[in-house]
């Protein structure tokens, strides 16, 4: 399943070194893309201006509670939350309710943020 760097739009396969270390362009945020949505997703990143990409990156880090300046790459699951432009969000609540939580720490430096998964019984 491909991952797309939000900053430069380049695609990487699962497990690619760039996802673990960050894209050579300096990007640390990746969209995790379902094959079915691949075409649609390609357009999202190419339509964004560099400033918009920065804003989205910052917003995502804020949303998932990761502190600024973090070096760790983050993968955002497009299935359940889409950021079309800064300040414009689309949420697939059916998916959000259904899926299980979480931020997976896969290896040093790599986190897979599955927002729908961020849901479960954390507060108990």
């Amino acid at each position, binding site marked *: 399943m491909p991952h797309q760097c939000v900053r430069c739009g380049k695609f990487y396969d699962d497990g690619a070194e760039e996802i673990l270390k960050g894209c050579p362009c300096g990007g640390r945020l990746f969209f995790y893309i379902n094959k079915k949505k691949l075409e649609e997703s390609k357009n999202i990143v190419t339509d964004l201006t560099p400033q918009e990409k920065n804003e989205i990156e910052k*917003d995502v880090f*804020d949303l998932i509670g990761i502190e600024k300046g973090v070096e760790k790459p983050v993968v955002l699951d497009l299935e359940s*939350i889409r950021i079309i432009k800064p*300040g414009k969000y*689309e*949420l697939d*609540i059916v998916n959000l*309710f259904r899926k299980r939580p979480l931020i997976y720490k896969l290896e040093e430096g790599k986190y897979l943020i599955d927002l729908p998964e961020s849901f479960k019984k*954390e*507060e108990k």
Partner: protein
Amino acid sequence: MVNIFEKFIKSFFKNLFRRKKHIKLGLYGPPNAGKTTLANRICEDWLGESMGKVTNMPHETREIQIKEQVNIKSGNKEISFNLVDTPGIATKIDYEDFMKFGMNATKAKKRAKEATKGVIDSIRWLDNMDTVVVVLDATKDPYSQVNITIIGNLEARKIPVLIVANKVDLKKSKIKKVQSAFPQYHVVGISAKYGNNIDEFYQGLFKVVG
């Protein structure tokens, strides 16, 4: 014998107290349906103080708000719960909608981000609820994805539900439409703002909480 009796009484009251203390009553629903207005109404009626800020702009509540130890009484029945007011659940959050209320772009984008996080938090908290009051705007079409998803998920989790069709003071409101959308639930038409039918709401709450 006396000891056993004493122990029984102690544990009975201890359990009763513990059970009551941990009841979490959640207010869920789409944005701007009147969740916080209802929370304020409940708190003003039983605690003499309000709970949260209310405005016409959607997504005013963007963080979970909790009011602990709310006791409500009816005759010789009493329930005690922690009232949890949640951010409205939406499928689309667009900062430009907030700009229509005169907010500048920077503030509107910040609000959109907070509202998105609020939706996620609301869903995350659902599993902690013992009983949920789903607050719907009776002037709007009840057959929305948000309403159906919330109620369907509550059903799947076997969480008791009371549906409130709010804003019955408005002419456009249609309680019957809400009732026919969710026929298997107890639907109470109220105006949280003006207090219309609020006693029926409390009665409904007693029935649901048991």
